[in-house]
């Protein structure tokens, strides 16, 4: 397992990669301002290998990315883990594409995968631009930090001239306003309910799929996920891709984004072992699916915690 120090910005990742340092250190959740998300990680991985954005390069990055998720274990902020999963799914798509016989790019599925790759890199490039411009912001702020604006109270002779302030409300309205101002605001959230979902195991979902597929022989992705939603759908999708890699299923899809048909080609008995690349090791204590850590407190505290 390669351990990275994400302090590095993309361009200098090569110089600052620390191989073999304590992994407990490098994979902390509170990487905070040093490292935050999948795009950041992807760029770091790409830069570390000084790779061209080619399919071959990508496969290396894919493996490392997936290993990273795996290594992160239950420590991940669930919100981030979910985002990781989405990017991971895209990457696994691309990895799956590599497994296809070469020279058959006419296949629409292949084209769709190539499009997915282009889209992913377009987004990476966009993110990289913002990351770089953020560095410009930091530089400007650093240059400004030594300048203090004059902000003093007005000389009494002028303050006395200020027009009478119109409060425009009486004691009762004022009290109502105070009550509103003193009531704790609801923490703004965007549909984070799914983050409270219990941890989903790709391996478990694969077992569910195997049972179902052995029974029905052919089915559609829609049917396979009719009884679940959210992360579970993603997990079953990932499980399907793993089964595909094991040669246990084949896919048929008439149109891009059309109905995905699945046919069982595996054995009728015995365990079908899928790699649990996406599964977290069992949590040390029950209840990792509880409270979502406060993102910003972690970031704030990491300000002072930082060394070097």
């Amino acid at each position, binding site marked *: 397992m390669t351990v990275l120090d994400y302090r590095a910005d993309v361009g200098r990742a090569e110089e600052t990669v620390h191989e073999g340092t304590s992994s407990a250190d490098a994979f902390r959740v509170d990487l*905070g*301002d040093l490292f935050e*998300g*999948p*795009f*950041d990680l992807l760029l770091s991985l*790409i*830069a570390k*290998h*000084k790779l*061209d*954005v*080619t399919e071959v390069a990508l496969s290396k990055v894919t493996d490392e990315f997936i290993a990273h998720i795996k290594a992160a274990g239950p420590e991940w902020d669930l*919100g*981030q883990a*979910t*985002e990781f999963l989405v*990017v991971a799914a895209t990457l696994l798509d691309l990895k799956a594409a590599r497994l296809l016989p070469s020279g058959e790019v006419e296949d629409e599925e292949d084209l769709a995968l190539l499009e997915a790759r282009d889209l992913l*890199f377009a*987004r*990476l*490039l966009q*993110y*990289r*631009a*913002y*990351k*770089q*411009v*953020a*560095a*410009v*912001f*930091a530089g*400007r*702020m650093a240059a*400004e*930090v*030594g*300048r*203090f*604006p*004059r*902000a003093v109270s*007005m*000389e009494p002779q*002028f303050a006395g001239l200020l*027009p009478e302030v*119109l409060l425009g409300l009486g004691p009762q309205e004022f009290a109502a306003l105070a009550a509103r101002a003193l009531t704790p605001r609801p*923490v*703004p*959230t*965007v549909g*984070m309910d799914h983050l409270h979902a219990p941890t989903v195991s790709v391996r478990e979902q694969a077992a569910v799929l195997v049972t179902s597929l052995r029974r029905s022989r052919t089915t559609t992705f829609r049917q396979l996920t009719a009884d679940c939603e959210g992360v579970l759908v993603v997990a079953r999708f990932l499980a399907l891709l793993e089964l595909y890699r094991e040669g246990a299923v084949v896919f048929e899809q008439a149109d891009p984004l059309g109905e995905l048909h699945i046919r069982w080609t595996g054995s009728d008995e015995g365990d079908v072992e899928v790699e649990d690349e996406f599964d977290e090791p069992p949590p040390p204590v029950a209840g990792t699916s509880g409270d979502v850590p406060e*993102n*910003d407190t972690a*970031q*704030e505290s*990491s*300000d002072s915690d930082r060394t070097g």
Partner: protein
Amino acid sequence: MTEQADHADHPEHQPEVQLAHLGHLGDDDGPALRTALEAILMVVDEPVGEMLLAQVTERPTDEVLEALRSLAAEYDEAGRGFQLRQVAGGWRFYTRATCAAYVERFVLDGQQARLTQAALETLAVVAYRQPVSRARVSAVRGVNVDGVMRTLVNRGLVEEAGREAGTGEGGSILYQTTSHFLERLGLRGIDELPDLAPFLPELDTVDDLAN
């Protein structure tokens, strides 16, 4: 024009104090324009636009702008402990950066806390995409930005700017940068943000991404 517009904005405001000795700027008995500007800028606690200064001094905006620039240049050349700077749509006195160490302990508001990398990146996306929803910023950054956005709002760098059009009460909240953000970056306005294009690689250099 300006005066009218301004009063229209504050219909409730009726100045009643008699300004006895305004005279004319530059008259023998009145101060020069530059002097009057220096005095006014001494009492402001936020950047003041040259339009308002022109209105108060009853001089053309061009002339006021010229005077402000010459004052700023003069302070710089003389190496004064203060600077006159044009930021966030207006003019304001600042201490000179070389004196920071001496000034710090007198500044009530304290040192500006440093922003995290995550906050900086989120701020950059908001600055270039504003007004923008959290979901859009999340999509660009590839991670959830709820916590970071809250931090930026708390720091006064970002503020809410209504809701996504046509979505009504339930629509996503949109965010934009504040004038405090401009001041922190020393920018006159959003249009002074560096162009993003040079940071996006040319199509044929995409392959060199990592180099």
